[in-house]
């Protein structure tokens, strides 16, 4: 990527990664895949953490039988390796600090990783858990695309 700093960074929570690979909700599937397409086209940078990725992969292993889970795990791993930035587990100090914005330690783990990676958007299906989160947009993939559509239109409207 030529100008990494000027590209919008979007953090994927574990549930968004899981639904990217496997969901029975066609609209959610389509939205997550569209965010991935934008990433492949370098229009935004997708970020996740080792913790979110590991837990999403673990859920895929638990849902699918051995042979099928291998397909899901291998493909999700590959797409993340090729198109995502994977950030390490945040320090306990950072997680503790994030607990002032969310009450659940799981959400603090995700929020602190997203903020440490300088992401402006957090993609999750637990948006209600992050109502007090500051300096970050917490959206489902579908809400994110809706906002993106509006921002695109606004960006080209003649004053």
């Amino acid at each position, binding site marked *: 990527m030529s100008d990494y700093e000027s590209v919008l960074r979007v953090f994927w929570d*574990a*549930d968004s990664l*899981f639904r*990217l*690979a*496997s*969901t*029975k*909700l066609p609209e959610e*599937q389509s939205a997550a*895949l569209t965010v*991935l*397409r934008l990433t*492949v*086209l370098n229009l935004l940078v997708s970020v996740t953490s080792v*913790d*979110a990725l590991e*837990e*999403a992969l*673990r*859920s895929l292993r*638990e*849902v*699918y039988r051995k042979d*099928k889970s291998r*397909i*899901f795990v291998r*493909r999700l791993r590959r*797409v993340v390796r*090729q198109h995502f930035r994977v950030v390490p*587990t945040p320090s*306990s100090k950072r*997680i*503790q600090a994030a607990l002032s914005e969310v009450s*659940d*330690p*799981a959400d*603090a*783990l*995700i929020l602190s990783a997203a903020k440490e990676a300088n992401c402006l958007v957090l993609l999750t*299906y*637990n948006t209600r858990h992050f109502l007090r989160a500051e300096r970050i947009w917490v959206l489902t993939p579908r809400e994110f695309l809706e906002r993106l559509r509006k921002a695109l239109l606004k960006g080209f409207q003649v004053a």
Partner: protein
Amino acid sequence: MPKSQEAKNHKTQHRGTPKSDGMRLAKELLRVEREFAKMHALAAQMSFDEEEVLRQLHERLRKRAESLLGRR
């Protein structure tokens, strides 16, 4: 019949030509589309409680975070 030197050179040059960025992106997008279409088709055949799977996922993340915070 042996190939002419010109034909051989042409082939070598062709092999060595790097793919354009557009072509590389198009191929990658196609690959991603194909792979995810297959995954989604497999997912549609499976019966599982998606909300429960996500709840358990969240629970494991909580345990992980609590362990990092030294709460366990």
